[in-house]
């Protein structure tokens, strides 16, 4: 079992985990209202790190984003004896948009979080391939779950997991175009909630094999709604499945459920239904977004650390901004802190791409995981698509078109009657076409509990540039909600999940290069989730209409 041997949080409320916890316990919030970044944009609420604090944190030659990550990892390494250059240590970065603030319309190759992760690894002298989890807002939970699995399957002995996002015009305008941002401080689960407050920060946990009586990720699961790219399932489908995967949870043991609680109408309502459906309505629920806003790729890690520190202090934290319940699921949201002597909690999280995560986090429990990855899965069909050709199981499919036209031709030939295909960005069309061809090769046999795990280097760069164009002209400033959604590479997973009703784990990982050994480690570690007996996985990279590749396999028993 992997335990957490060190942690750190850098946020507007403080530069250590304990400072952040104390501020939240005292009811502090870093959220303020800022004027719109363009004359036509509304004000927005956000929890932002002050520029004078940034002045202290910025490291020469590194961006704001990279500096926050480095500073958080540095602080978590303080006081523990760790040879980071060891081949037994991996770096896992969790983010939604990483260095996106640095993107300009002329130079596009270097903002991929995969490249950023390599720069961070090089800074510390980490020698193994850094893994970036790009699973939208659940990335932090996905990253900790991946670390725990990689350690349990003996791929590494230790993992440094850092979640970080910084706010920029790109993200702020995007969430505003989705009508998701509140102008005032967010109010999780409250009757008057009207949207989220954005947030920024970094948080690190260092996990290690067998370190005894410490906090540990005891169990975890990720499940997809198979419902919509951005709207969560109204019945909490994926979220309740993820909670259900944690096994029997007794209120005698579990102090609380720390919800995602973004304070959007849809998220909080969905979570309340998911908790009720999983028969966990008797366990108190809290949410921390009212203190720190939605810190995106950092949220899962920040909120897990705060919850651990709270229980170490015998406290269940309240939910700032919550007064009167405004969700229909039967749950018990705590407005104020209360004492407890329990040493376990559940972390819930959900995000775009239909993904939902749940972790059971415990301290001092000796239960070990059954970490044996089942090995019976074999590739039964494999497809490769490039701008020039499509090859299924070694046989070239007869096609005429090139690039986007080729994808359209494959759509007409193998899919058809799914107009949503034309709304997808290039990365999604590529992944969708490839996986639907695998689906037809397997006679439709990709069952509901299948898992979809994809990798690339480019993240969503082509759509990042298209979205940036919509906010680059002062006189013609119309941030496109549809484009913004596709700036998350994991949207390809919900497109595939919705079409085929796949509700198993979905995950998107970025690597600095196509590294088969690391991909295999990640896939094997995913198979410790014993409910998976069918897996769609592979490499899907896209730099433009004449430069893309998908190499994806369907693995089954």
């Amino acid at each position, binding site marked *: 079992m992997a335990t957490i041997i060190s942690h750190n949080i850098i946020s507007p409320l403080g530069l250590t985990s304990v400072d952040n916890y104390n501020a939240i316990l005292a009811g502090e919030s870093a959220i303020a209202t800022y004027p719109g970044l363009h004359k036509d944009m509304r004000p927005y609420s956000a929890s932002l790190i002050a520029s004078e604090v940034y002045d202290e944190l910025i490291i020469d030659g590194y961006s704001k984003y990279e500096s926050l990550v480095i500073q958080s990892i540095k602080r978590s390494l303080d006081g523990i004896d760790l040879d980071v250059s060891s081949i037994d240590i991996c770096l896992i970065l969790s983010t939604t948009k990483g260095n996106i603030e640095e993107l300009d319309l002329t130079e596009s190759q270097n903002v991929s979080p995969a490249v950023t992760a390599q720069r961070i690894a090089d800074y510390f002298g980490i020698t193994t391939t850094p893994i970036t989890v790009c699973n939208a807002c659940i990335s932090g939970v996905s990253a900790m779950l991946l670390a725990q699995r990689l350690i349990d399957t003996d791929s590494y002995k230790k993992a440094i997991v850092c979640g970080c996002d910084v706010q920029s015009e790109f993200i702020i305008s995007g969430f505003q175009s989705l009508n998701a941002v509140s102008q005032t401080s967010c109010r999780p689960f409250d009757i008057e909630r009207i949207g989220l407050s954005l947030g920024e920060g970094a948080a690190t946990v260092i996990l290690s094999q067998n370190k005894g009586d410490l906090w540990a990720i005891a169990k975890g699961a990720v499940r997809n709604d198979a419902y919509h790219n951005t709207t969560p399932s109204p019945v909490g489908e994926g979220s309740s499945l993820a909670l259900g995967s944690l096994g029997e949870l007794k209120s005698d043991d579990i102090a609380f459920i720390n919800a995602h609680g973004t304070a959007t109408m849809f998220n909080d309502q969905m979570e309340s239904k998911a908790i009720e459906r999983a028969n966990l309505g008797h366990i108190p629920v809290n949410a921390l977004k009212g203190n720190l806003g939605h810190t995106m790729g950092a949220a899962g890690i920040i909120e897990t650390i705060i919850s651990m520190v709270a229980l170490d202090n015998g406290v269940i934290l309240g939910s700032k901004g919550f007064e009167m319940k405004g969700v229909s699921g039967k749950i018990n949201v705590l407005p104020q802190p209360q004492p407890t002597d329990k040493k376990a909690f559940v972390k819930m999280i959900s995000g775009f791409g239909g993904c939902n995560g749940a972790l059971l986090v415990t301290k001092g429990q000796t239960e070990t995981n059954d970490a044996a990855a089942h090995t019976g899965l074999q590739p039964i069909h494999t497809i490769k698509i490039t701008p020039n050709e499509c090859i299924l199981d070694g046989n070239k499919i007869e096609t005429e078109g090139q690039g986007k036209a080729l994808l359209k031709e494959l759509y007409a030939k193998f899919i058809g009657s799914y107009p*949503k295909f*034309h709304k997808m960005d290039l990365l999604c069309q590529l992944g969708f076409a490839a996986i639907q061809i695998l689906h037809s090769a397997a006679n439709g046999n990709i069952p509901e509990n299948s898992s979809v795990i994809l990798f690339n280097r480019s993240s969503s760069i082509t759509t990042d540039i298209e979205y940036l164009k919509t906010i680059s002209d002062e006189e*013609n400033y119309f941030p496109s*909600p*549809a484009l913004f*959604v596709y700036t998350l590479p994991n949207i390809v997973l919900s497109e595939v999940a919705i079409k085929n009703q796949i509700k198993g784990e979905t995950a998107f990982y970025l690597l600095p290069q196509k590294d088969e050994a690391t991909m295999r480690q990640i896939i094997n570690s995913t198979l410790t989730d014993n409910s998976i007996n069918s897996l769609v996985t592979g490499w899907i990279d896209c730099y433009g209409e004449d430069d893309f590749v998908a190499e994806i396999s369907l693995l089954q028993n």
Partner: protein
Amino acid sequence: MENLINTLKEQIIDVLNLEEITAEEIDAAAPIFGDNGLGLDSIDALELIVLLEKNYGIRFSDPSEAKQVFVSIATMAEYISKNRTK
């Protein structure tokens, strides 16, 4: 009004990438959303708000107002003709 309706149909097809339907096939009086509509979702609705702002200079003070406007192409055209600033 007929011209505006046709222009609007073309703009919607273009902005929402409705490749498998032509302007002639869209009934201006039929509901846009819902099972028998154009297969649009909540993100499409947000893109329609951008379309109105960009092409006709119409800004909704509260985006939920758009609901009453986005009933059919005809109701949209009527609202545009009364409220357009460009």
